[in-house]
């Protein structure tokens, strides 16, 4: 069953996608599924292991399940400091 998700992109991901945010319907179970599907759609080559994800403002692991209505934040490799 499809889930309606709001996905937010940051930094390099925002530039790849050409948008800050989108609400989309996807057949996914985990944050990893969201990343892989959208990576293909937006043409990013960034390996998942370098990136981070948050669901509804909580940093989570890639294996975390996503639920209908969740907001997924996709973070490219961080580079503070």
């Amino acid at each position: 069953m499809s889930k309606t998700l709001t996905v937010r992109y940051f930094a390099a991901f925002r530039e790849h996608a050409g948008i800050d945010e989108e609400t989309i319907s996807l057949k996914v179970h985990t944050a990893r599924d969201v990343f892989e599907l959208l990576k293909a759609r937006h043409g990013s080559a960034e390996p998942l292991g370098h990136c981070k994800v948050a669901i509804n403002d909580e940093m989570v692991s890639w294996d975390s399940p996503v639920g209908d209505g969740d907001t997924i934040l996709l973070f490219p490799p961080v580079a503070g400091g």
Partner: protein
Amino acid sequence: MRISKQVIRPVELRDQLTDPRAGAYAAFEGWIRNENEGHDVLRLEYESYEPLAVKEGERVLREAAEKHPILKAECVHRIGMLEIGECAVWVGVVAPHRDEAFAACRYIIDQVKLRLPIWKKEHYADGHSGWVNCERCAAHAETAPPVVTRVHAS
């Protein structure tokens, strides 16, 4: 933990940490330099996702206090367009003794660089620009504490 668009003034920040029990103050300042990996850098543009940068930064500060007997620790990270020589990040720690102050300060800056959702774009002298992909940070990512797997919400 604070994310700021304003110029970082380390002396003012240090003064907020004074404590009669403190015998040591250790600080780190990260500055904008004019070169990275062979490219002449003119300026750096930082962005963050502030709600989580603050939350994760607070977690790092708590961890530092759990690992080392310190009195206070604080961190400020600047965002926006920064020029060469400006301070991008400041960490300050006060403790009764210097060993703990140094160790906690080192822990905080390392974890801040590794974990906080903050990104920087370099603007080069040749007119190009590029997001900094911190390979060393990514390579060390497995040393960071694991993030939780969320239980199903729906």
